[in-house]
């Protein structure tokens, strides 16, 4: 895994060096999948689940921490979780945790998961004051159960409303936005922490869509089921340069009625997903949601008029792969 990681980093570095819209060596598969991605191997997506994850209504923090360790060990192919985190971050860096809190307590990144990640970051040498938990608005964070913290002597928890946006637009394709300073100025690296859920317009909201929280005008990017907007926003260089890993909070999944929390269309998935390739993660999460929709007798998203075509567009941009033949799905 170490070798393939290294080759993947080289590959991504090459892509980023030429980040002007060209894709990274790709060909079209027979059914719309784009065969792009690291030449050194497939894109790994790890799914870790624990059927006994819950304690009462929410996740058991201790069990969630152990699940996180299992996830990261499997993702990096290492024997202990500390080594996994040391591959992800270096002491002295400022690390951002981009949570998803729009939907309030029911369908947001669980604070228990963020606490577990913060604990492990510190064990890997990141100082507490060099951790920033951020999202679009401070009130979104508060609604999801986070306490706003702005002091420089500890981990910070803040929205873009407090940290601000750049003055100059960043643009790619259909996207033109002011980027959050949390991303551009504060953080050296970002761990993306979306949730597993349906989206009433763009089909699903997972890794790439979560970066709508890094731009000032996400409300402009929903026409045409989000295509190509979701992919184009993710192409903005600071996003591709700084997001190192996606850990999807799939303690609950929501297969209908998103992005707002709809408990009647949620189910306990009791899991976490990890991937470096956001396209592979989004494709995998989409399939999980489709399976649950089918199990509940709901139409596929394509028939519901909201197939997430932007996943294909993202693959065409070279962000990653949506080809199941090139996605290494590992369940632990």
């Amino acid at each position: 895994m170490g070798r393939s990681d290294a080759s993947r980093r080289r590959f991504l570095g090459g892509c980023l060096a030429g980040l002007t819209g060209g894709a990274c060596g790709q060909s079209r598969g027979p059914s719309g999948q784009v065969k792009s991605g690291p030449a050194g191997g497939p894109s790994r997506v790890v799914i870790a689940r624990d059927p006994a994850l819950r304690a009462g209504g929410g996740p058991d923090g201790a069990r969630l921490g152990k699940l996180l360790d299992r996830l990261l060990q499997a993702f990096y192919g290492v024997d202990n979780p500390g080594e996994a985190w040391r591959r992800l971050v270096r002491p002295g860096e400022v690390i951002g945790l981009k949570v998803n809190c729009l939907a309030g307590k029911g369908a947001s990144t669980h604070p228990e998961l963020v606490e577990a990640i913060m604990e492990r970051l510190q064990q890997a040498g990141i100082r507490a004051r060099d951790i920033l938990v951020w999202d679009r608005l401070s009130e979104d964070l508060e609604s999801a159960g986070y306490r706003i913290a702005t002091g420089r002597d500890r981990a910070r928890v803040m929205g873009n409303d407090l940290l601000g946006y750049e003055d100059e637009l960043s643009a790619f394709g259909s996207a033109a936005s002011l980027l959050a300073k949390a991303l551009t100025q504060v953080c050296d690296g970002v761990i993306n922490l979306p949730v597993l859920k349906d989206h009433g317009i763009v089909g699903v909201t997972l890794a790439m869509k979560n970066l709508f929280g890094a731009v000032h005008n996400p409300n402009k990017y929903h026409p045409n089921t989000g295509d190509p907007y979701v992919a184009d926003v993710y192409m903005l260089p600071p996003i591709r340069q700084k997001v190192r890993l996606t850990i999807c909070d799939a303690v609950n999944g929501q297969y209908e009625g998103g992005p707002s929390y709809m408990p009647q269309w949620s189910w306990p998935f009791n899991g976490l997903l990890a991937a470096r390739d956001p396209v592979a993660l989004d494709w995998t999460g989409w399939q999980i949601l489709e399976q649950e929709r089918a199990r509940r007798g709901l139409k596929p998203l394509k028939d519901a008029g909201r197939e997430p075509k932007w996943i294909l567009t993202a693959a065409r941009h070279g962000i990653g792969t949506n080809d199941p033949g090139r996605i290494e799905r590992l369940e632990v």
Partner: protein
Amino acid sequence: MKALGWTTLLALAAAAGCARRAPDPLPAEAAGWSKGRTRSFAAAELWRYVDGDAERYLQAGVVRTLAAEYRHRNGSEAAADVHEMSAAAGARRLFESEPAAGSRAIQVGEAGRSYGPSLTFRRGRYFVRLVAYQDSAETAAALIALARAVDERLRGAP
């Protein structure tokens, strides 16, 4: 004098507009629930509350949305959204656009559905959604009681 007349008319019209709006359909206390933070979003700002979900409310003619947090004396928490539409047809459209599978009809508003930990109902040009963060029969019953209190305040609202 003519200008003064227009000013007076505009003031009266504005006052009449305010009078037509229900003062606050979300009670401070009701059926064991206590209201916490309340926010109000005009249509153009609704995306700040439910980005990605706002469009369907806009298409149905939402005028403003009131959102409040509630806590029950038994510890349950809930969110209450009252969407004020420009016409009753908008409230009906929103209500009927949501899948009824897994729900049961409840006698709240002009039409209502309980999904257990959440419910929706409509009354005139108001579409209401209550969502609890705990899933139990007790919470579901408490949610319906809160819905009835909200509905009572919407009765007679224009």
